């Protein structure tokens, strides 16, 4: 189940041949549905939950969900990606919110 594409927000990177998630996925698991012009995961079972697609999506249209047999609903982990910082917001199944913001790059 891992990558969940929000088809409302996904614009298939303007339906170019290779969206950013398709471009980046280490497992070649993301693909572009040429019909709808939206991205989707071709084989959720093979996802490693590395969240590269989540970080790469310019619209924050992708969310990683753990397989239910490993973790319960509705936990969320959502990044906000800056040029040299990233902020992760994690919401656990009891609704507890934690936020982590840190540098990802030294600005030289």
């Amino acid at each position: 189940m891992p990558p969940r594409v929000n088809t409302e927000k996904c614009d298939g990177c303007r339906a170019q041949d290779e969206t950013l998630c398709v471009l980046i996925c280490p497992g070649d698991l993301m693909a572009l549905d040429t019909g709808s012009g939206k991205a989707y995961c071709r084989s959720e079972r093979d996802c490693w939950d590395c969240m590269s697609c989540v970080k790469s999506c310019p619209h924050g249209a992708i969310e990683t969900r753990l397989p239910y047999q490993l973790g319960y609903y509705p936990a969320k982990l959502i990044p906000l990606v800056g040029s040299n910082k990233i902020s992760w917001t994690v919401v656990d199944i009891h609704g507890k919110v934690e936020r982590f913001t840190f540098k990802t790059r030294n600005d030289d």
Partner: protein
Amino acid sequence: MKVTLLEKAHIDRSGCLAGGMDAINTYIKPNESAESLVRWSRAQAGGILREDLTLSMAALLNQAVEEWETWGLPVKKDEDEEYLARGRWDITIRGSEMKVILAEKVREYGCEVLNRVVATNYLLGGDRVTGAMGFGVRDGKFYVVRAGATIIATGGAAGLYKPYTNDGVDSHHQLWYSPFNVGTGYAVGIRAGAEMTSFEMRWCAVRTKDFNGPIDTISVGYKTPMINAKGEKILSEHYAHLGGDAAPRYIRANAPMEEWLAGRGPVYVDTRHMKPEQVKDLKTDYLNERPSFVLFLAARGQDVTEEPIEVYGSDPYIVGGHTMSGYWVDRSRATTLPGLFACGDVCGGVPNKFVGGCAAEGLLAARGAVSYLSSPEERDQVDDGQIKAEVERVFAALLRQAREGDGVTPREMEERMQRLMDEYAGGVHQFYRMNRERLEYAQKHLSILKEQTKYLIARDLHELMEAHEVIDRLDVAEVLVHHLLFRQETRWPGWQNRVDFPGVDEKLDCFVNSRRDTGTGEVQVFTRPYEQIVPGDRTKP
């Protein structure tokens, strides 16, 4: 000089650093030395490693990291601007963008990058490697890259064994190591007749239960002891004679299994003493390496200061950056195939090199390759025969789908292989245990599977890639089983556990190497002696 990089995925996020990296675990601090590193690593590896290679790597360890920092990689510092120590050899980094930062440099230096091109075999001129062949996962083209020198750096092999989470539709790839690293680097070497070493030294590790996440982050970083269901500190209470908390990694890997067998499972790392700010740091570390572990804790609704994190053994991997399986090389990282150099997880003989060591080895291999280029060599022509043959081999699964429309899907064959290895070659469901008969059974069925690969079908290029992933894994698995059979002793209990030979056999205090005959295709296994350079008791750090 023109450098061409073949990458199966995209260099920004490929391989086991896709999620990022939170630490450099081999940084030589002022009070340490190359020699002390060798002593420590040697003890961790049960007394066997290539000291010459380790020393040459150690010389470059710090240089790599320090250069990365100037490229923009954040490294945690203490108040007097020194790298903040985490463990004896560890420093903390904020590496969630690590590969992206490196990739930018690769492009900046004008390296030609061929993303989404799967390497399938070397290009051979006589016995020399003169480049590589592969196919494009996007364009379906067949690529032939001719090179004066070739460096193999494709990482280790995951997915040889069945992971214990593989019982639900969506958790097939709950692995510690990147499931997209399938040992292609080993496989192409095996097929070309390169000499390989120490495959029997598998990498099995204590990992967080179910999620299979790294725990050095916790255990090294925050001094959290491993405890069993009875609350006993396992290492200090049951393994004091082997060094307690400092016991070699294979002992630590074995410990949870022993606890379970002894009925004292489950096993945890005890995080309950951690302070809130420590927990915050801990999660931040994970967010830099495997962000989804933080999601896992949230999905379990787990507060680690109240509930310890359960741990268990991972499925076994072949990964030369942690253990020492891989190509048999010299100091310049030249393999036994002229023109071919190896570094990182595919390069054998140097355990515990981790990210920093892999980078250092990258530099060594590059230097080796450059000096090889400058040495006058006759450049023999590539015969188109092998290219033609490879084209047929590479696209066979697609053609079969088109012509026959029926056969074996890569996924089916992968699952068969993984269960076979798990149950008969000491997988996690068997507590890593194995014996001769089971290994021979595995051997028999592996050869059937290899025979069956001709029935593989692929409906698209992605499945074609999967087909070659299983083909490559089978080649690695075959050699692995030969090695496991050969070492008739139990040298590394967690990693290589022969229940039919429980003790250590001094005669086998050496390297077990192998080479597949390119003609007959049969694997010859032999030994190579140990050469000690750094004096001292090899089992003591």
